[in-house]
Every structure is written in C-alpha cells, then in structure tokens.
C-alpha cells in the first residue's frame, strides 16, 4: 500500500502530466487508504474525487490520455469495472489501432480485486483474464510491495493503456521497498524461488501462498520453482518455458475462477512451447471454484486456493498422483 502511494507520489512530483482520479481518493484516502494524504500534497486538481460514475471515470482517463496527460484511474473495487467496460475495451484499448497507429493512450487503471475480506459476491472478483483477452491493453498484477512500486512506475511511463490489478489482502503486506524511483520493466516474469521438482506459476496473492507451500514441501524434500509472470500481457514466456523444461512439471495457481481463466492461457502457452516434449505430467491448474464468492467466512476461504491446497496439488503432481 505504502509502496503504491510512494510510486504515485514520485511520479506526480516528477511529471506534472500525471494525476489520479477516482471515487473517494481525496480526503477519504481511498476505500483501502492507498491514496491517503496525496491530496494534501497535490490538491484536489490532481487528486480528483468523482461522482459514482465508473464509465465516466474511464472516459476521463482515456480522454485525458489521448490529449497529452498521463492519468491514473482508480476503480474502487475491481468488480465495478463492469461499468467501465465499454470505455476501456471499445475505446481505450482500440483507439490507437483504429486510428492507424497514430494515437497514444497512456493511462493506468488501478483496480482492487480479490476475495478474503468477507465482502461477498459483488466485491471480490478477479477479472484479469477478461482484459488479457483484449488486444491493446496490458495487464499487470504485482504480488509484493517491491514489485508493486516498480511495476506501477513502469506502467505510468508506458505509452499504452494498462490495467493494474491489486489484491486487497496484499495492501497490508510488508517487504523491502527502495525509497528512490525505480521501475520493473513490464513483460518480465520473475523467478521467485528456484527448485527442480515442479514449476509453479502463480499470480498476485497466490505467489506468497505458493511460497509458504514451497517451504512446507521443502521439508519433505520437494523443491518447487515459483514463477510470477507479474505482467499477464505481454507475457514473458521464456522463464516459464525454461523452467518447465528443467522440471518437467507445471502447476498454475490463481485466485480467479478456473473456467475461462488465465490458467488455461498459461497451460496452452506451455503446451505450445518446446517445453511440451519435456512434460512428464499434465500441466495442472489450481484456481478459484466456479462460483461467486460467498459471504460466509469459511465458504469464502474454501472458494479459492489456500496454502494447504497448493501443498496438496503440488505434492500429488510431483509424486505422479493425478
């Protein structure tokens, strides 16, 4: 959270074309406090509170971007992006192409996604694969404070429209974050942990759950390699393919609903690569159940992958019990 705020602050200090717009991001500081205090430094002309108008917010960001600004939009809960779809998909994503490659639409849309806070079915979605499926958009999904700041700054500097998916549960994560400005290039997968027995590709909050799982499995002598794509599109395939060639096995873990999700894309990419010949087990997906997120805490917990599920899936896959 502080990492994201710091990133936005520095970008705004450095470049006066950068501004932030969304619901309750000013004095309120954002529903999760991410923008807290920014209005004191930059004022209400650059930290802009909007009416509840998500199509309008998207339009504001697109129109400003195409006329020389570098806006950062905020969708309070990523679920509400359903109201911005027309603007993001039909306008923001396509303008450059429709206009013959002659327009730049450099914006970043930040969205708080994910379950785990008891917010139920309309406040817990993980919709990233919708946007992976939209040519023209880039999709970023950080899993640590360090990545969050570096990727956000890279996204702000990028000349394309970018969907930046944050996970609510990660806002409280602690981790080392350099004070100075730095960027992590978009389109670079990150090998989070090395191992020889299984390649585990995880996104967002599932990266830390995978790390915990890997530690438990290490005690059993199973060595998991964890890769975080960080940018879902454009996807940096090579580290993933290289890893699968090494381990011969792949497990994909994401929170979004399995059917129609990003895991299928990843599975196909692996299969279509040279890694296919090295696979000695099917690539498997561990993902959210095909259901809306329930309110009940216990059901909510079981609706998406947890550490113990990852341990179990990974173990089965390594031991050939699938």
């Amino acid at each position: 959270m502080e990492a994201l705020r710091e990133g936005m602050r520095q970008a705004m200090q450095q470049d006066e074309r950068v501004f932030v717009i969304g619901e309750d991001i000013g004095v309120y500081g954002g529903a999760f406090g991410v923008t807290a205090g920014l209005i004191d430094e930059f004022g209400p002309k650059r930290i802009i509170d909007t009416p509840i108008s998500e199509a309008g917010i998207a339009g504001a960001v697109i129109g400003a971007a195409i006329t020389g600004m570098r806006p950062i939009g905020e969708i309070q809960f990523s679920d509400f992006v359903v109201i911005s779809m027309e603007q993001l998909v039909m306008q923001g994503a396509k303008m450059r192409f429709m206009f013959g490659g002659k327009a730049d639409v450099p914006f970043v849309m930040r969205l708080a996604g994910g379950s785990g806070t008891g917010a139920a079915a309309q406040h817990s979605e993980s919709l990233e694969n919708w946007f992976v499926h939209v040519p023209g958009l880039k999709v970023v999904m950080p899993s640590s404070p360090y990545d969050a700041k570096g990727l956000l700054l890279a996204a702000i500097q990028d000349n394309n429209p970018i969907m930046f998916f944050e996970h609510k549960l990660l806002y409280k994560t602690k981790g080392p974050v350099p004070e100075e400005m730095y960027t992590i290039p978009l389109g670079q997968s990150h090998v989070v942990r090395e191992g020889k027995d299984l390649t585990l590709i995880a996104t967002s909050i599932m990266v830390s759950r995978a790390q915990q799982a890997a530690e438990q499995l290490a005690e059993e002598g199973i060595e998991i390699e964890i890769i975080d794509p960080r940018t879902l599109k454009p996807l940096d395939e090579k580290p993933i393919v290289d890893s699968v060639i090494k381990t011969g096995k792949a497990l994909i873990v994401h929170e979004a609903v399995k059917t129609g999700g990003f895991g299928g894309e990843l599975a196909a990419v692996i299969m279509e690569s040279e890694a296919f010949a090295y696979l000695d087990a099917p690539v498997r997906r561990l993902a959210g159940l095909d259901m809306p997120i329930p309110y009940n805490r216990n059901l909510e917990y079981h609706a998406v992958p947890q550490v113990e599920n990852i341990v179990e899936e990974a173990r089965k896959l390594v031991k050939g019990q699938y």
Partner: protein
Amino acid sequence: MAGNSKNEKLIGGILPESKARDLLYKMVLTRTFEENAEEMYALGKVHGTMHLSIGQEAIAAGSSPALKKSDYLLNTHRGHGHFLMWGGDLNRMMAEFMGKEAGYCRGRGGSMHIADVESNNLGAQGIVAGNLPISVGVGLSIQMRKTDQVVLTLFGDGASNEGAFHESLNMAAIWDLPVIYLCENNQYAMSMAFERAFRIEQVSERAAAYGMVGLTIDGNDVIAVYKAVSEAAERARKGNGPTLIEAVTYRWRGHSKSDRQLYRTREEVKEWMEKDPIQRFAKVLGVNEAQMKEIQAQAKEDIRKAVEFAEASPEPDVSTILEGIYA
C-alpha cells in the same frame, strides 16, 4: 401492510395508530439491530463490511408499509431497515448477517445481498444503482402479467449519478411502468458531498428529464414518506407510471467500517442528530420517555434472542459450497 378497516385514529390523517406504533417499534428495532451489529463487528463476530442506516429510519418506516404484500422491493446496501419493514424475520436476518445456514441466503449473501424472493423482496445490492435497471424488468413483468403490483426501488444520492439511473428512469417513464423510485438523499455518497457531485439542488429535479413526476420530501418524517409513497403507488397502480421521490435525510455513522469521516464536521453530524426521526415520530405518537424505554428494552430483548438463534444455527457445510449456482 396498507389498509386498515377498524375505525382507528389516523396519524397524520393517513396512518392507522396501531400500525404507526408497530412502525415506531420497528424503527427502534432497526437502530438496535445496527448498534448491535457495530458491537458484533468490534468483537469479530461478523466480518466484511456493513452500512448502517442509523438516522435514516423514517424512510424505511414510511415506504414499504405503504405498499401491499404482493408488491416488490429492490433494496440497497444500506437496507437493514427496509428489510425489517418489508416483514423480514429478525432471526433469519440475524443468521444471514452472521453467515449462518439458517439465514435468508444460507449465509451466502450477507448484509449486502440479503433477499427473500418468496416475499417479493428481491434483495439488497452491492453495486450502487445495480437495482435500477432491474426495476424496469420487474415493472414490465407486472405490466405483462396485468397485476396491480408496484415495485419500490431504493437508492442513494450517489447512485443517481450512475448511468444505470438514467437508462432505468427513462425506460420506466416511456412505458408507464409501475415503479416507485425512492432516493434516500443522505447528502453523502461515501465521502462525496451532494454539492460536490451535483450542480442542482435536488435529485428530484432530474425527474423532469424523463417526463416523470418528481418530488422532494422530508426523509426524517415518517408520515411524509408514507404519504408520498402511497400516492406514488396509487399513480402506478392506475397505470400512470413511475414517480421519483427524493427523501432528504442524514447518515449519522460513517459510510462503512473504513470511514474516518474527515469530509464532514462534528457540528454538522450533531445538528442532524437533533433531528432524530425516531424521537420525532415518538412525539407525533405521544409516546413518552418511559414508554420509549420499554420499547427499547423490548427491541434489545428481541435482538438478544435473534443473536441467540443465529449463534445456535450451524455454519454452512463446506461440502455444500457449490450449491445454488445453477437451477
């Protein structure tokens, strides 16, 4: 709900006294429910978020009770009062609130999605203005089935800046649908003050953009709300189309649990707390302080029992997790 045959005193010339007393009780019950909810949240007995309507109880008290059992309700995220006034059972409501199997939605929905389709309560809403387009469909369905039902659809001042508001009101207007649009203008949408989000004085001015009847009333006055909703219902049942009612009120508590309330002053809140709709309605009914204490004690007791009921109810079994997605 509506209708009373006894030769009873009519409060404000419209509301039978016994019914009025029942509404007063339910207003107190609503507030007690929400105060208790705050406590339970603090104790970790409920999770997620919640939106309290403390200070706004008059709107719920004056609206559903003006309708018939066969009518429809589309509720908002700030809808505990409406749920009770519609006739919701306190025990099953509490169980839902605590995520239990005995809850109205088997613990799947929670406060933001509580519904009781059996009684034509089509649910609360997590998406601001998400219920407004649905009202169109309910209205159309009533028209096609040729019943005399109406839809009561609730939303806040903030909701009326969503595009969904616009499409819904226009469609209801051109087709004369039997929809009562009741806007609870509590002057804030989360931190966004009404004056910052609108360049007009009243939400009801927007009715004219659809050729619809629009009016603004005192949302802290049960009788005013009851009258406006009764008239709108009559209009709708006669086939004369929808009405936009703006009921002006104030939210005493923060928007939800994450609210530090930096966007308004303590004085402003205090001022409005002096306009307490419950005290006001009690006065109208001639209920004195001692009687009020009794009512409150009764409400507390009912809440206590509901909590007991809910706590005794089992958690949903994890093996049933995939139930209820497809018909």
